[in-house]
């Protein structure tokens, strides 16, 4: 996926005008906010669990090499294979090599953000392998050739009409009188198509929400059960995971799971939580013959020991974007790459470069709502600010803004001059403003402000001028 992040502004402006998208985004509140708030309120120790979650992740990151090695040893012990992949290219190649070795033609896939990150589908298709997305949202996006707009609800930007439209276009055998009134109708239609694919697939690819070091287990959570079919029916199960997914113990994983579903969808637990350890053993009734984990770094290890290390605690719950007032009005596609919202604003610059993703950490009011809901207490605004600092250091900040800042900084450091300048400015604007009813509908150099709102005029006298005046006349 070629990033369109440099065009964030244009993307956002377009998104604000898209009626259908706005209709879909309006569902955020009932679907995510209210449910999360309820789930959190119902668990008095939630705040404590957050602290524990943060600490577990911090501890793991501190000894990441140790836990990854332990985890990998245990995967191999259970008969699985670990493929260490420093880059996206390595990860794609590793998946392809497995698929080619087993002669795979159809590959079913559970939802995986890593798959998006490494643009796996296009790559497999180019090599003659058909990837089939089995998560309902991902499935429709595949039909529409669209990227996900949300990390847990990939098709969150679509409405029921969009689904129906896509089905009628792609499923050409649909009788015209077939109704799509409810979610269930959509589900049934997708299921019919997917059932055939599940049985035909040679390889099943899933993501991983957690990797457990002490047991060599990968964990996925889904609400549709598609993940289970994806990983148990084909002969080969490939797990796509990144290095920060590891936690030390089963116990730790359960703590993280208690945070994940509540923060994501307001459920106490997702409908399916599946633990996979190695391939099928002789006594197992089912399961894959081969179990592989593609372990992706893709720049993450460079975040260790940097101001961005805390970002590696992220468990991809999406609470930050659900509660982000900017995401809520522009949607995920505006961010222009795989990870949208506040977590994307921090992560994307690491993965595709700050010169590409420079807008993302700037497109925030620092309202702090993301941090207040993040289950692992990632200081997202602080890290966005770090990116702004890097941009400033590297002169990526627009020169107009730099000049303004420098000028303002000069005055702010010289209170005497500052007093004179502000006094004159306030007097002028105040005087003009009084003639205009106390506000300006347009002002030179302030078009960005006045296009959408009036500019209230200042009173005309600065505080310091008034204070001096009142003090002199003993009127204070």
């Amino acid at each position, binding site marked *: 996926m070629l990033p369109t992040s440099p065009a964030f*502004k244009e993307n*956002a402006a377009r998104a*604000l005008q898209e009626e259908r998208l706005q209709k879909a985004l309006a569902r955020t509140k009932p679907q995510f906010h209210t449910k999360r708030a309820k789930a959190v309120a119902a668990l008095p120790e939630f705040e404590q669990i957050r602290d524990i979650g943060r600490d577990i992740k911090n501890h793991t990151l501190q000894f990441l090499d140790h836990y990854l090695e332990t985890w990998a040893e245990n995967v191999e012990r259970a008969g699985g294979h670990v493929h260490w992949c420093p880059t996206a290219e390595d990860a794609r190649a590793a998946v392809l090599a497995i698929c080619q070795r087993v002669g795979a033609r159809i590959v079913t896939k559970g939802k995986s953000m890593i798959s998006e990150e490494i643009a796996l589908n296009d790559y497999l298709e180019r090599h003659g392998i058909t990837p089939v997305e089995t998560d309902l949202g991902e499935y429709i996006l595949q039909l529409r050739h669209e990227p996900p707009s949300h990390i847990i609800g990939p098709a969150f930007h679509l409405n029921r009409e969009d689904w129906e439209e896509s089905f009628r276009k792609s499923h050409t055998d649909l009788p015209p009188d077939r109704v799509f009134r409810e979610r269930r109708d959509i589900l049934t239609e997708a299921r019919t198509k997917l059932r055939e694919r599940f049985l035909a697939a040679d390889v099943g690819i899933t993501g991983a929400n957690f990797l457990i070091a002490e047991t060599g287990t990968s964990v996925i959570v889904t609400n549709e059960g598609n993940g289970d079919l994806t990983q148990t029916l084909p002969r080969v199960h490939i797990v796509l995971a990144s290095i920060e997914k590891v936690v030390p113990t089963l116990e730790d994983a359960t703590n993280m799971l208690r945070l994940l579903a509540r923060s994501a969808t307001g459920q106490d637990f997702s409908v399916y939580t599946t633990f996979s350890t190695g391939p099928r053993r002789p006594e197992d009734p089912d399961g894959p013959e081969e179990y592989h984990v593609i372990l992706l770094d893709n720049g993450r290890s460079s975040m260790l020991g940097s101001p961005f290390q805390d970002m590696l605690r992220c468990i991809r719950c999406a609470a930050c974007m659900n509660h982000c*007032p*900017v995401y809520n*009005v*522009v949607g995920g596609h505006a961010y222009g790459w795989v990870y949208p919202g506040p977590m994307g604003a921090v992560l994307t610059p690491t993965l595709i470069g700050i010169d590409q993703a420079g807008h993302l950490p*700037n*497109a*925030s*009011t*620092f*309202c*702090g*709502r993301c*941090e207040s809901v993040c289950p692992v207490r990632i200081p997202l605004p602080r890290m966005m*600010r770090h990116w*702004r*600092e*890097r941009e*400033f*250091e590297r002169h990526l*900040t627009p020169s107009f*803004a*730099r000049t303004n*800042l*420098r000028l*303002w*900084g000069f005055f*702010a*450091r010289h*209170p005497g001059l*500052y007093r004179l300048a*502000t006094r004159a*400015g*306030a007097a002028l604007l105040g005087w003009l*403003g009084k003639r205009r*009813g*106390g*506000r300006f*509908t347009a002002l030179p150099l*302030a078009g*960005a*402000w006045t*296009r*959408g*709102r*009036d*500019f*209230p*005029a*200042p*009173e005309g*006298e*600065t*505080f*310091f001028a*008034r*204070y001096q005046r009142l003090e002199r006349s003993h009127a*204070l």
Partner: protein
Amino acid sequence: MLQASPNLAKTPRVALFVTCLVDFHRPSVGIAALRLLREAGCHVEVPRAQTCCGQPAYNSGDRATARELGRQIIETFSGYDYVIAPSGSCGGMLRHHLPTLFDDDPNLRARAEALADKCYELVSFLVDVLKIESVGARFSGKLTYHDSCSGLRELGIKDQPRKLLAAQGAEIVEMEDAEVCCGFGGTFCVKYPEISTRMVSDKTANIAATGAPLVLAGDLGCLLNIAGRLKREGRPIAARHVAEVLAGMTETLPPIGETR
């Protein structure tokens, strides 16, 4: 007149951190703060060497300028018992961010921390520290209150202004999403004007839906944004800083963006 707080052993020496927006735009808010603090029993001074808390630089990634201003603030304000700002945003900057500017300088970091501990936003200082339960001025009528982000999330300001306003006689009608950002965000509002305008339009719609003729907040940045949008939409709703109401200035001072 309200009672000097019984909780203070001595008269505290308080520095007013005027904030650049109040200084330039709405000095009455500074005067209101001054009066409220005096009436609450404080000895208030206004150090002349102050300009701005440094957020424009800090949030634009210009750490060097933010540090220089931070140093200036430490020099200017360290000698007081308390430093009070009529803004949750500047209050948050002083209390939580100032020390982080000096992570590599233990000496300045320690001084910044000592100062940060003494910095408060005006209304939370009156209620939480001085234990003021009511102010002298009365106010009757409906109003709605926007919770500015930094005040709410960095300083825990939520009930304090409502408590004082209710004690004055105000009827507070809560708006939907009072805790959601108004879209100001410092330079954000001019860097991403379309997004900002959409956010503030959602805010003004929520304000209007309460039926209250007055919206209050504790930060002038948000208020300029909200008032500007209310005026543009032609809505007959007044916007004011909470300190103006607490100090009983509503009769003499026109609302933000109006001349009366």
